[in-house]
């Protein structure tokens, strides 16, 4: 009797661990909490957007009606989370065909620094596997012109800002009309 109870208990815990491992390995994961906050001051948190969220969840929350330009093909220089976006946007709203635009080309360092700094002012920052090498971690700045939040058809462009920095920004911020 005691033996069968022990076996049943071991089985239950093993199955639970199996479910946990499946959740970790076989399903999408984003982030659980923001870490390494330098301050808990409410104004600073809101003003500087210190709380993190991943680009994919930000797209789901704020850009439901949008189209996504050149996130790149996952595994071929594109964002790893690109395949997840298919469920919400369908292939017709994602331009997988083009590679991520490298905005470093043809601009001076000062211009690029100013641009990055502007994006950070309003952007959410998060860390995700680098599109160019999934073994590395890259920072992604996600931002958009807040006046366009409800705009149907807003276009979010995936760009490379630095060696380990990428951006997901709406096209009005790029002047890409």
């Amino acid at each position, binding site marked *: 009797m005691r033996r069968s109870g022990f076996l049943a208990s071991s089985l239950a815990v093993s199955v639970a661990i199996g479910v946990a491992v*499946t*959740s970790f390995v076989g399903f999408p994961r984003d982030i*659980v*909490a923001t*870490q390494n906050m330098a301050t*808990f001051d409410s104004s600073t948190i809101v003003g500087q957007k210190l709380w993190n969220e991943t680009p994919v969840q930000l797209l789901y929350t704020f850009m439901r009606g949008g189209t996504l330009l050149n996130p790149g093909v996952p595994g071929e220089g594109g964002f790893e989370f690109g395949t997840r976006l298919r469920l919400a946007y369908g292939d017709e709203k994602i331009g997988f065909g083009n590679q991520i635009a490298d905005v470093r080309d043809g601009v001076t360092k000062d211009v690029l620094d100013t641009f990055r700094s502007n994006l950070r002012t309003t952007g959410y920052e998060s860390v995700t596997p680098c599109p160019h090498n999934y073994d590395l971690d890259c920072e992604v700045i996600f931002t958009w012109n807040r006046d366009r939040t409800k705009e149907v058809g807003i276009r979010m462009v995936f760009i490379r800002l630095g060696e380990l920095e990428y951006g997901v920004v709406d096209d009005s911020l790029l002047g890409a009309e």
Partner: protein
Amino acid sequence: MIDLQLINWPVTLSLGLIQIGSFLFLRASKNLAFPVAILGFVTAASLAVLVKILIPSVDATAVLLVISALVVFLVFVWARPLPRKSSILAFAASAVTAALFAVSQVVTRLGGYSSIGFGDGQTVIGISEGFQAGVYDRPDGIIGLKRGFGLPAYQSLGFEGEFLVGFLPVVFLAALVATYVLLSNLISNRTLLNVSFASLLVILLSTESVTRHVYLMNTHSLTWTIFAVLLVGLLKFVKSEQDKSTWVMVCVALATASMLRADNLLILAPTLMLLTWLARSEPKLHRVGFWVATFVPFASWATILGFGLPGLGLFGFPLFAVLGVLLGLMVMWVTVRPWANDKMVQWVAKGILLGTLLLAFALSSETWTSIVNMFINLFLGEGLWGATPLFLVLLYVALVSLDRGPVSQQQKWIFAVVVSTAAAMVLAKFGNGLSISGQLGSFVRIGWGDSLNRMSLYLIPGIVALLILRAERVWNRFEGKSKR
């Protein structure tokens, strides 16, 4: 050496005091004293901030300490004569709870842990900052109702300029403890209970949608706690094991939910009605108490919003509370009709879900899309639930196929709460759509941030309760066979 200034001592003391009161009051079910203390603290803190808004010269923390001390005093008076052992245990429980909160504050600060970025959370700490500074920018009607009161109120008791750092993990812990207590009220087999809960913990803590709530600046884990406590109360009524502390515990849970958000009134409505039915042998005053606890706290904070109800102004909300209590009296009148019985009430609860779905299909062209989105969130991972929902469905099917015997009254009532609450959550989401766009629209969108996806946390206590009741039957069946 840890800097003791990292700890918010006055608020920690207040929580400790309320824990003493909760422990002494719930001596018959001590394990529930911690979650109920958390609920009591949130209600007391919200009340203190409400007083500060009405009388700006007072200090909210001082008011909170006075309320907490008053709670302890009243419980000591109520519980007399009190065995020395109970008093010692109450102080020990208080020390443990205060220590837990203190450790949480230190760990949170040292690790710099905080909420993930979510618009609602940022709005909440913005309102909370206003409460703290005494500059309350009364929000517009719908925004004010949606954001609620209790969360920004108790969060405003943090250090100057900050929210209440380290409290949310304690709330999450309270939700887990309340769920354990709920399960322990359902089954007597301790081995099965502990193994099931250990397995449940492994699964829940590996589910990102759940663990996000450890620090998420929102009311979800608190509402999870509330539902677990309410289910414990409801089951005590089902089994006729209720005492006076059951009634107080249920009222505290209802009042806390009412303090938090306006839509909680709708989400809790089915549970409130089922409680009123199951407590029909209780004195009328006790049952009216459930409705007063649900509607009066809401009316009290809604009157400080920047708008009144159409044509009624600020008197509208107190009037709404009176109407709510009158509705309760009407429900009580129905409960004594000769044609009303358990079976009918259970069918009505299930019918609410069916009715809601029919309404959705009739009035919204996006209902099917919503259902598909819900499937994607729950089973394909975009709601960050991992393999958990799929496993729970498979487990339930397996347990049902292993034992197809008649279901118990407990199972029937818990099932009624789960399905009717799920329906109320969909209705609340429709209300949200109506207030924003004037149409029902879609009630589920893809992604973790979808309201229904996040609110699914409320159903965890009910769902695991149903599973463990099934598991116990299967366990007993196999145990019986092995004995033979």
